[in-house]
């Protein structure tokens, strides 16, 4: 009897967030028949994609025990740069390269400050967040961009075999970085640094280098995310990307990656991201005010971390 109880408890703690996910979906489905339509589900995935891509990078950063709160504004800056250079007649490939380079550059700055100079990650990325937003405003003079080369919106809107290219692309990225995180030397070091930085250093490994790598990848993926976001909307505004860093962090945490680093999974982050957007979508199609959406999202984040903490307590 007791054993059964323990088993149930373990199951709730280990899979609690998935159970919650399923329950939420069922409730939405009952409340609104449209929720489970293939069109709506597809739509949710398309909306999730850009955030989900950036959340991969955020996972790597959080696995090292850090955090990157610059990614949201960085996505916005990438969009603005795309808008500016589109106006100068740069082609689609060029625009993509600019977005990626911008992400890479900020990632390098973050990684250097945090890995080598040892500025606390929150502070360093708070700084670059401000810099990115400021640059967006200065470059755009506060005005949005809506003129892009013909076909620029392909990445964000095209379908291959009935499924969004953006969604397929995101899935491929998840698989690549899942293999990267679990199957390469750099991935292993990233996990280990989050587990015990000093032990990694005293294994003769340059922790600074691998910590920096995580931020560089995160910045680069923010560049990809910014590109996808701009392409899907065919619109770039200096206020775009606001709070997106919080959504990526929420996706990582809901996915079960520990904020202290060392433990977690890139793949599970995708579940966290989808759950976040299922909530948003379900509440919207049920005519719940956006004000309540924030509240519910906040509660889900706490629930996810609560379950994890209980699980770890039990283990200890």
């Amino acid at each position, binding site marked *: 009897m007791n054993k059964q109880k323990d088993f149930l408890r373990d199951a709730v703690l280990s899979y609690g967030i998935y159970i919650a996910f399923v329950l939420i979906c069922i409730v939405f489905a009952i409340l609104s028949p449209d929720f489970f339509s293939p069109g709506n589900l597809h739509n949710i995935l398309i909306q999730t994609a850009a955030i989900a891509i950036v959340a991969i990078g955020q996972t790597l950063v959080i696995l090292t025990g850090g955090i990157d709160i610059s990614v949201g504004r960085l996505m916005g800056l990438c969009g603005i740069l795309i808008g500016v250079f589109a106006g100068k007649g740069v082609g689609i490939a060029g625009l993509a390269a600019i977005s990626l380079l911008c992400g890479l550059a900020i990632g390098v700055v973050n990684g250097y400050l945090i890995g080598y100079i040892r500025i606390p990650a929150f502070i360093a990325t708070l700084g670059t967040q401000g810099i990115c937003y400021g640059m967006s405003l200065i470059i755009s003079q506060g005005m949005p961009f809506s003129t892009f080369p013909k076909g620029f919106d392909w990445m964000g809107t095209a379908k291959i075999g009935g499924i969004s290219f953006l969604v397929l692309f995101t899935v491929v990225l998840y698989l690549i970085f899942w293999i990267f995180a679990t199957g*390469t030397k750099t991935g292993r070091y990233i996990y280990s640094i989050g587990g*015990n930085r000093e032990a990694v250093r*005293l294994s003769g490994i340059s922790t600074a280098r691998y910590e920096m790598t995580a931020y560089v990848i995160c910045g680069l993926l923010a560049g990809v995310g910014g590109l996808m976001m701009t392409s899907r909307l065919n619109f770039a505004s200096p206020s775009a990307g606001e709070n997106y860093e919080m959504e990526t962090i929420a996706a990582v945490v809901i996915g079960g990656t520990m904020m202290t680093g060392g433990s977690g999974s890139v793949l599970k982050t995708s579940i966290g991201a989808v759950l976040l957007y299922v909530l948003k979508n379900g509440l919207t199609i049920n005519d719940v005010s956006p004000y309540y959406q924030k509240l519910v999202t906040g509660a889900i984040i706490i629930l996810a971390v609560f379950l994890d903490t209980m699980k770890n307590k039990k283990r200890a």
Partner: protein
Amino acid sequence: MENILEMRGITKQFPGVTALDHVDFDLRPGEVHVLLGENGAGKSTLIKILAGAYTPTSGTIAIAGETAVIRRPKDALELGVRIIYQELMVNDYISVTENIFQGRELKKRGFLDWKEMHRQAGAFLQEMNYELDPQAKVGSLGIAKKQIVEIVKAVSGQCRIIVFDEPTASLSPKEIETLFDVIRRLKARGIGIVYISHRMPELYEIGDRVTVLRDGKKIETREISSVTPEDLVTMVSGKNVEERPKECHAREEVVLEVENMPTVLNRDEGISFTLRRGEILGITGLVGAGKTELARSLCGIDNLGPRTVTVHGRRVPVKSYRETVKNGIAYLSEDRRGEGLVLIRSIVDNITLPSMDKVIKGCLIDRKAEKSAAGAYIEKLRIRTPGGHALAMNLSGGNQQKVVIAKWLMRDAEILIFDEPTRGIDVGAKEEIYRIIFDLAESGKAVIMISSDIDEIIRAADRIIVLKDGRKCAELDDVRNLTKDTILNYSFGVS
């Protein structure tokens, strides 16, 4: 006079270890009672029980004649027990007064009464015959003054017993005099003082009685004036262990030459020694002698400016620990959980961490190769675990140490620096670790074994260096005819 503290039959058992075995200890008001013993003899355990950090397995404590129940640090504080630890607990960012009154600030009409607090703090300092501005930020004060602040903080409340843990370790002779003056004033107020130190001369200067602990047992309590330093050393060391020293496998080839290596403790006058293939070089000394600091300096873990070591006859600069590892040197930290292992990762991950390049195929980790390579070490070193996938955190101390050793064997380290290799490891597993170290030496590795456990050093080392206050004070080649007292005499500076 009635004893202010009576500890009777104090026993403390940790899993696998009896740290204290029916120890009696008493303290008279106005007395300085010295607590003496080797590292690991049980001094700190006894103090932690008095402070409420540990609860005894059995035994009773009475304070001022009344039975005291000390379960938490708060209980000890309320009974008037204060501990001045070696690591001072003052807050650098606030003033002397704020430190002294922390937690029991004076108030007037709901607001903090700074005027009165400064006045009282000044009075306390004056009582100790000590000049210090109560409004000064503690961070701006030297270590000696900080210590005084801590003492004043301790005695300004209701205080009956003060424990000093190595209070003079980082003080100059003049500062020690001032401290002793303060201690004498505390004595005059009838406070009972427990004094822990390894420095013989000062024990005779300040102490009234001495209690010697060894291996968790009380050996004797004596009036300090009735024992000679030589007697004390003998009491501390006990009978020499009848261990036949192991066979020496040292070969001619010198693998490491260290010349004038500075340490954090002693930047000017460095330490020099050589190490040969197959040799186990023991480095010992009391806490604070600079053993770990020496290892961290020569490995490039602490940054101390340009310096070199000669490895296999090749002079190489000490730049970073990463370079050191490339030269075939490994440091196995005394803090296995904090510096040796990634506890939340598997045993396999930990073993292969420094040697990832050996298990990489293309750009991916070859899991099979990794598992079998690590598995070979798990088997060879007999790491007891359900499997290589088990987390490092779930292993016992002895098995954790074996994982750390496996890490460096897989990395082909030729020179292994063990820092307190058996600290926190139970008796049975200790033997296993020694066996492994002996086998390593026999197979041609060079080993430096840092330990403050003198029995261990005599048992395992082929040659012994004794450090004191950051300097090499002895190098002893003839280990077979060495007694524990000889080493203790060097360590204590008793000639």
